C-alpha cells in the first residue's frame, strides 16, 4: 500500500484520473482504466500493473522512475496473495489537513524582506509596501516622500495589501491570517485568523463594504473569501482554483471579480451572485498578474509563461498575446487604455502595448533584483515597483529615469 501511495497515487487519484485509472480503492484497481484492469487478484503474471513496472515496458510506470526488483517482487506476491487492500493507508495523508495543525512562525532571517505587495491609495497620497513582516506607508504628497507609518506583523511575511476606496482601511494578508488596519492611525482594527495558507491576493469592493481575499496552501485548492468590513463577518467562501490564486481584481462597478491562479487559469465571476462566468484558458504556466482597464472592458493577464494576454471582458475573447518579456511577469497595471505597466523577474519594469507585439515600448531599469509588484499613479506619471531587495523603486514616466527607492538609505526602518 505504501508503494502504491508513493509511486502511483500522484497521478492515479480521483482528481487527475490519469489513464482513467484510480487506485484509491480495490474496486477501482480491479475495474481499471483505459487499458483494462490494473490487476487481477491472484494473478500477478497477467496484471497490467506488473507488466508496466518492468524496466523495458512501454508505457512504463512510474513514468519517471524505476521500482527496484525487490519492490516489484513485493507487489507481485501481494497480488498473488489476493491484493488485500487497506484504503486507510492510501487516503491517510489527505486526512491530516494542515488546518488542524498549528504552525508556529519563527523569526524571519535577517536577510529576507522581499516587497511582495504594494498598494497606492485612491487619493494617490499614500503608498503602502510590504517588506518581509513589516508594512511601510509613505506620504507621496510631499516631495521627499517621508515614511509615515511602520506596521509589524511579527514573523509573518506580508503577501498582499489593499486600501479601501476611501482610504479608511488598509488590509494586509499573511500566513493564515488577514489583518485590517485603520488607514490613518495605523491601529489594528481587526484580524481574521484560522485560514489554511497564505493570503495571496486582496481587494476591497468599490463601496468599501466588502473585503475579498484569496487564500490557500501552495499546490492545493485555493479559496475566495468575502468578509464584511469592518466587523469581519463572513459573507461567503468558495473554492475557486485548483492551485494558489495569485491575482484578484474587482471591476469599478463592483459586479465583476477576476481571479488568476497557479492552475494556469483566469476566471471571471459574477461577484454579487458569487457565480463563475467564464474560464479563460491559454496560459501555459501559473498566472501571476491581472489588470482590469478603468472602463472595465479589457482584462490583461500574464505570468510564468512570460506571455502577456489581453482579453475582451464582454466576449471573453483573447485579443492579443504579447511576447515582450524574457522572464516571468509578476504584476500588471493599466497606465492608459492602450498601455500596460508590467514588472518582471528580470528586474525591469516595462510598458507594453498591443501595437508592438514583440518589443516593450518603454523599459525602466535600475532595480537590482526580481520585481514582484507594480503600481502606477492615476495620472500615469509615476511608476512604483517592489523588489526582492526590500525596496520599492520609483520612476518618473516622462524622463524614464530612476527617481529613487523607498525606503531611501537615509530613512530609518526597523528592518
Amino acid at each position: 500500500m505504501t508503494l502504491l501511495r508513493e509511486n502511483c497515487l500522484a497521478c492515479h487519484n480521483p482528481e487527475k484520473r490519469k489513464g482513467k485509472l484510480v487506485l484509491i480503492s480495490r474496486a477501482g484497481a480491479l475495474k481499471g482504466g483505459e487499458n483494462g484492469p490494473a490487476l487481477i487478484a491472484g494473478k500477478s503474471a497477467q496484471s497490467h500493473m506488473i507488466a508496466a513496472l518492468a524496466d523495458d515496458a512501454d508505457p512504463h510506470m512510474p513514468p519517471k522512475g524505476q521500482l527496484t526488483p525487490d519492490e516489484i517482487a513485493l507487489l507481485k506476491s501481494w497480488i498473488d496473495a489476493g491484493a488485500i487492500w487497506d484504503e486507510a493507508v492510501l487516503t491517510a495523508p489527505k486526512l491530516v489537513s494542515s488546518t488542524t495543525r498549528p504552525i508556529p512562525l519563527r523569526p524571519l532571517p535577517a536577510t529576507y524582506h522581499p516587497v511582495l505587495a504594494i498598494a497606492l491609495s485612491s487619493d494617490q497620497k499614500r503608498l503602502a509596501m510590504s517588506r518581509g513582516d513589516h508594512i511601510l506607508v509613505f506620504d507621496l504628497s510631499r516631495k521627499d516622500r517621508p515614511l509615515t507609518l511602520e506596521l509589524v506583523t511579527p514573523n509573518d511575511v506580508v503577501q498582499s495589501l489593499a486600501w479601501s476606496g476611501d482610504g479608511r482601511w488598509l488590509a494586509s494578508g499573511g500566513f493564515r491570517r488577514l489583518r485590517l488596519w485603520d488607514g490613518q492611525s495605523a491601529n489594528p482594527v481587526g484580524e481574521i485568523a484560522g485560514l489554511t495558507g497564505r493570503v495571496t491576493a486582496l481587494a476591497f469592493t468599490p463601496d468599501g463594504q466588502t473585503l475579498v481575499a484569496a487564500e490557500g496552501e501552495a499546490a492545493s485548492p485555493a479559496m475566495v473569501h468575502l468578509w464584511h468590513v469592518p466587523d469581519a463577518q463572513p459573507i461567503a467562501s468558495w473554492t475557486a482554483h485548483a492551485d494558489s490564486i495569485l491575482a484578484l481584481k474587482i471591476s469599478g462597478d463592483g459586479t465583476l471579480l477576476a481571479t488568476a491562479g497557479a492552475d494556469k487559469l483566469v476566471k471571471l465571476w459574477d461577484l454579487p451572485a458569487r457565480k463563475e462566468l467564464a474560464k479563460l484558458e491559454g496560459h501555459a504556466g501559473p498566472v501571476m498578474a491581472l489588470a482590469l482597464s478603468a472602463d472595465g472592458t479589457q482584462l490583461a493577464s500574464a505570468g510564468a509563461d512570460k506571455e502577456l494576454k489581453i482579453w475582451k471582458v464582454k466576449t471573453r475573447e483573447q485579443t492579443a498575446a504579447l511576447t515582450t518579456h524574457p522572464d516571468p511577469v509578476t504584476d500588471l497595471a493599466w497606465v492608459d487604455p492602450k498601455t500596460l505597466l508590467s514588472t518582471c523577474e528580470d528586474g525591469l519594469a516595462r510598458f507594453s502595448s498591443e501595437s508592438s507585439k514583440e518589443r516593450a515600448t518603454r523599459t525602466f531599469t535600475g532595480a537590482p533584483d526580481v520585481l514582484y509588484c507594480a503600481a502606477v499613479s492615476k495620472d500615469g506619471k509615476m511608476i512604483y515597483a517592489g523588489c526582492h531587495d526590500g525596496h520599492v523603486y520609483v520612476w518618473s514616466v516622462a524622463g524614464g529615469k530612476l527617481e529613487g527607492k523607498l525606503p531611501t538609505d537615509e530613512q530609518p526602518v526597523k528592518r
Partner: protein
Amino acid sequence: MRHILLTFCALGFVASGSSASEHVATISLAVWPESATLNAGAAQRFSVTRADADGFAIDVTGKASFSSDHPDVATVESGGVIRAKSPGSASMTATVDGATVHMSVSVRPAPPDSLSFPNDIMPLLSRAGCNAGACHAKPAGQNGFKLSVFAYDPKSDYRAIVKDARGRRVFPAAPEESLLLRKPTLTVDHGGGLRLKKDSQPYQLIRRWIEQGMPYASKDDPTLAAIEVHPREGRYHKLATQPLLVLAKYSDGSTRDVTALADFVANEKEMARVDENGVVHVGDLPGEGVVIARYMGLVDVSRITVPADQTLPDSLYATLPVNNFIDSNVYDRLKRLGIAPSERCTDWEFIRRASLDAIGALPKPDEVKAFLNDPDPDRRAKLVDRLLQNPLYADHWANKWGDLLRPNPFRAGVKSVYTLDQWLRASFRQNKPFDQFVREILLARGSTHRDGPTVIFRDRREPADITTFISQVFLGVRLECARCHHHPNEKWSQDDFYQFAAFFGSLKRKGQGISAPISGEAEFIGFAPGTTGEVRHPVTGQVMRPRVLDGPVETIDPNRDPREALAAWISQPDNLFFARATVNRVWGELMGRGIVHPVDDFRASNPPTNPALLDALAKDFIQHGYDLKHLIRTIMTSHVYELSSIPNAYNVRDTRNFSRFYRRRPAAEVALDAVCDLTGTTENLQGLAPGSRAVQVWNNRLDSDFLDAFGRPNPSADPPCERDRDSSVVQALHLMNSTRLAGKIENPAGRATQLAKSTRTPQEIVTELYLSAYARYPTSSEMAIALSAYAAKDATRQTATEDLVWALINSAEFVFNH
C-alpha cells in the same frame, strides 16, 4: 592451431599456480585518499584495497579494523568513515590480516554555519533527480517550476526556487511548510513521486538553508574546482564488488566526500554495473568498462578491467611479430586482458582486404596471381605502397571525407557542392598534408563557385553551427550539447562553446545567400577588417572572446581574421585534439572500429580502448607532417592489420581491442564498384562521365537503388553524415532479385558472356571468377560444385557462367571485407 592452444593452456596453468603460492607472503595494502584536509564536523570515507600478486585490486575496507592516534581530532569507525572533530592533525591506521596502512588527516576549524546554494543545496536537488531532463529541467519546466539541466545555471535555479511566483516555494518563517520540501516528501501530491525522505539528512540541510534565509553563497565560499573518483583504474576478479569514492575539490584546497551525492553510470553494463551508492558490481565477463561519476557538471571516470580467466604466458606475446609500434601497443593491451590475437591472414585475404581498404576496389585477377606467386618476403608492404600510388586512392578517401564535409546540394547549390568535391579530390590526389587541408577549410575565402572550402561556410552560416561542425569533424569533440547547457558527460560549458564560436564571429558573406532548392548564384566568403562580429553568450549576453578548447583567451588584432589564430592552433604540434581525432578516424576506417568509438566522440566518459596506441599514432602523425598516406601505410603494414578475421578461443568475444580483423561490409559505392568489376560492366551514373566509378559520385541525390540499399548517406541530412554500416535484408534481397543486377550479369558485353564465348575451359572460367570475386583460387570441392553447373541438364556455357557469377555475388565472402 589446436596444438598451439594446448600449449597456451599448459603454460597458463603453471603461471597462475606460481602466483597463487605468492599470495600469502605479500599482502600489500593501499589506502585512498592518503591524506585529507577536513573541516571540523565533516565526514570522509576512505577505502582500503589489497593488491594481490597478480595486480588485482580487492576492496577490504569492510574487513579492516581502524584506529586513530588522536580521537579528539578525528575518529574513525568501521567501514572507514572518518569524522573530523576539532582542529589538529591525526593519523589513522587500518589493519587487515596483520598488514597495516596509514592515512593522515588534518582538521581545520569549522567555517561559519552558512549554507551555500551552489555547493550545498543544488547537489541535493540534482541527486534527488529534480533537474533530470524528463522532470523540472524540461524546456518548459514541469508544472511551472523549471530548473536547468544538470544544474548548469545555478543562478537561474536559485531564482526559480527562491523568487518565482512571489516566493511561493519557500517559507522561511516555517521552513517545513515550504513547497520545496512538501512536494518531494509527498506531503502534497507530486507527479515526480517521493524524492526526499522527511527528516533525512538532505531534508534537514534544505530545511536549515531555508531557515537561514536561502543564502545564495557568501563571497568567501570556495568554488568547486574538480572531482576525483577513486579508484581511477583497477583490475578486478569476476563478480567482485568495489565501492567508488568521489571527492570534490574546492578552490580553497579543501575537499569533500560527495560520494553520496554523485551520480554513477556504467558504459558496459554487462561487464560491470554500478548501483546508486557508487558500488561497482563486476559481472562474469572479461573485458573493460568505465564507470562515470558525475557531480555538479563535473565528470570523472573509473576504468575497470576484468581479465580473462586464463592469463597467457608472456612468451606467447614475445613471439608475435612486431612490424611497428602499433603491434607492441596492441599486444600490451591483449596481454593485460588475457587475449591471444588471431593468426596472420593469408596472402589472398591480405590483397583483397588491402585493396578494398586503400583504394575501394577488388584486385584484378592478374594482380592476384602475381602477388600470390611473389616470393618477396616484403610483398605485403610493397603492395600497400603500390595501392597508395593508385589513382583510385584519391577518389576512395575523398569520398569518405565527402560524407563529413559535403552539404546537401539542394541547399548549398549543385555547382557549389561540385566545386567543393573537386577541391576534395585534388587534395587527396596531391596527398596534401592534413593540417594544410584543414587550414584551407578554416581560412576559406573567395567564391563558392571557385574556391571549394568556402562552400562549407555557405552551408553553415551561424558561428554556432560552424563550431559544432568543426569541433566534431576535426577535433573529435561533440560540443553540440554545450550550445544550450553544460555538457552532461564532459567538462565543456557554454563558455567553451561560444568562445570557440567567437572565432567565426567576423566571417563576412557577400552575394546571393542560400536560395534553396537551387542556390544557383555564387556567394563570396571572407573577412573584412574592422568589422568585428559579435558572438554573445546566450544566458549572460556577454560578448565572447575567442578561445580554443583548453586554451587561453586570445587577443585578436581587429585587422586580422580571428580564424587565423584557430588555424594556427589546430596544427600546433602540442595540440593533440586534432591529431588524435584524425588518426582515430583513419584507424576506424581501416580497422572497423575507432580506438575511441564513435570516432568523433572523445570525452572523459568515453575513453579510448588503447590510450597508448592512440597517442603513439597521433605523435607519429605529427612527426610525419600530418601525412595521411604515411598514417595509412603505418597502419596497413602493422601485424595487427594482417590478423585473420577468424577468431580463436581467446578472442572470440573481443570487439574492441583489435585482436583480430573485424570483418565488415564495404561502403555502398565500393560494393557497387565491386559488382561492376566482377560482372565486367559499368554503371551509368547521372552527372558523371560514362565509365565513372561509384566512388567518384559527388552528389548523393542521384538515383540508385543499389546505393540506397547499401546505406549511402542520407542526401537530405546535414554533414557530417552517418552511414548505415549494418547489413540488411534489403541488401540480401537486392543482390538476389534486382533486375538491374540481373541485367549486369547477363550483359552481352559483360564478363559472363565474354567468358562463355571464349575458348577457355570451364575450369579456367571458374578460376578466373574466383580470382575476381575472392582474390583466390577455388578449392577442389568448390571447383567440383562449380563444374557440375556446366554439366547440368539444360545448362549452356552462358547460363552456367551467369549462375556462377550470381552465386558468387550472393556469398558472404564477396559481400564482406574480411
